[in-house]
């Protein structure tokens, strides 16, 4: 626990010691607010559907940017050699780093609460979908983060980690879309539609928190965290 806390503190501070955290927060808030308010007054309804439908796409670009340095940078400059020879278990490092990136995401998402506050001030929104939407954002962001961290463990090049992260998140996001399912062989359709991240997100958006969706998100997160730990361990056996 102590080790996870040490890694967490170091990584979280390192986000704020460099411009990454500020750029991430500023651009996320600016982009999401713009996409939201662009349609908000035209529709004239106190709903946040526009916001929640845009955020998955914004996350797609921003989250791999947050996670790309987690391992790739350590390997590039060699600090991983000191880190992994400290008396610390591989999974503690992975979890510590993951929690740090999750906290940065958490701070960002909480700062975007200015949008629902505005909506509540201007009208009388239905709280259910908004609360569901926010829970969905956390879950989806957490899933993207675990994928992004995994792609960072497999390379020492941050750009490669970034692009692979986008590609993998994108694949998971669209895999359940109708256009993909339409062209896929029949036997694979139920698998794809279950694996598709977008479908699970839209069911949470309706304000329904289904245990199947929760299990889905936690499985994705657990799977990629496990793969990350595996990669970190395997690299000792090069």
């Amino acid at each position: 626990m102590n080790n996870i806390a040490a890694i967490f503190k170091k990584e979280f501070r390192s986000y704020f010691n460099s411009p990454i955290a500020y750029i991430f927060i500023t651009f996320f808030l600016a982009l999401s607010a713009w996409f939201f308010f662009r349609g908000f007054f035209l529709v004239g309804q106190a709903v946040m559907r526009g916001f929640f439908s845009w955020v998955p796409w914004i996350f797609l670009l921003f989250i791999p940017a947050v996670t790309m340095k987690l391992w790739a940078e350590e390997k590039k400059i060699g600090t991983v050699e000191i880190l992994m020879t400290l008396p610390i278990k591989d999974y503690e490092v992975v979890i510590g780093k993951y929690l740090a990136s999750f906290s940065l995401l958490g701070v960002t998402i909480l700062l975007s609460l200015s949008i629902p506050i505005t909506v509540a001030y201007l009208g009388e929104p239905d709280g259910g979908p908004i609360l569901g939407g926010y829970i969905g954002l956390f879950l989806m962001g957490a899933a993207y983060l675990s994928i992004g961290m995994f792609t960072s463990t497999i390379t020492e090049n941050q750009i490669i980690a970034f692009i692979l992260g986008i590609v993998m998140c994108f694949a998971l996001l669209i895999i359940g879309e109708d256009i993909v399912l339409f062209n896929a062989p029949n036997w694979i359709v139920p698998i794809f539609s279950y694996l598709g991240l977008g479908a699970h997100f839209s069911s949470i958006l309706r304000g329904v928190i289904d245990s199947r969706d929760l299990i889905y998100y936690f499985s994705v997160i657990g799977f990629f965290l496990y793969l990350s730990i595996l990669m970190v361990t395997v690299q000792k056996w090069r």
Partner: protein
Amino acid sequence: MIEVINLTKRYGPTVAVDNVSFDAKAGEVLGFLGPNGAGKTTTMRILTCYLSADEGTAKVAGYDVFEESIEVRKRIGYLPESAPLYTDMGVIDYLKFIAQIRDIPKSQRSQRIKDVVDICGLEKMIQKDVGELSKGYRQRLGLAQSLIHDPPILVLDEPTSGLDPNQIIEIRNLIREIGKEKMIIFSTHILPEVSATCSRILIINDGQIVANGTPDELAGRAQGEEVVHISIRGPRAEIEAKLEELTLISDFKRVKSDDGVCGYQIMSQKGKNTAEELFHFVVQNHWSLTELRQEAISLEDVFRQLTGNESATQLTTP
């Protein structure tokens, strides 16, 4: 304290460490010597649990590096080559971070940090970011992080590479000072460094240990041969023809030739009074002697012979 038995590590077809065995006791300063790419770093990485080996076992302080890796890591302080540090952290933050993972109780942390800052001469740098430090100070900070938990064993990979001569001497003194209390393994390819600091030397070449002993023992190994430098004023062709005929010497090599003075490096068997004989040889031929000096056989010669680079082959072929 360290026991390595038949360690082998391969990277694909290349064998980086080939069946290496050695041991080291408490209180020793062990120098790993070898040309670049000889397997020094790989051996150290295995001992510090950063890499696994393909075959063999290694024990540090009685713990197996593969089975009880965490226990081993607790007892080792490690400074990798070129001191990789987090450049976006403050010097103090960095040491605090290491101290926390090293499980130093909170109440003692600031005292320990102060201690290592003192030992490594970092007092003036504690307000700075790691990224602002010069190479020499980064090396010191790397050393400070390896010392923070007061480990019984220190592993330092080329601690003096890339430093200026003054910094090299400072780091060397530091190693000697710390070596009084701890066991240290350090690698280098700079020869005077080991004679200056080590109590024992391991010479590694192509992944194998080719020599293991105290600096004096190793220097003694090359004592079968003697090298004499001589400069003679006289006709070059004639001198060389006569030198060829001389049975006393096993080989000679011209090292300079100008203004009618020829300088030679002469190899011969030990204990034959080569210098004296050469003096008579010059007098008999009515040339004049401008220089005659016997070269002390150094570690350098042993190193060159054992690691077999080009100049060593020239030296030893008759």
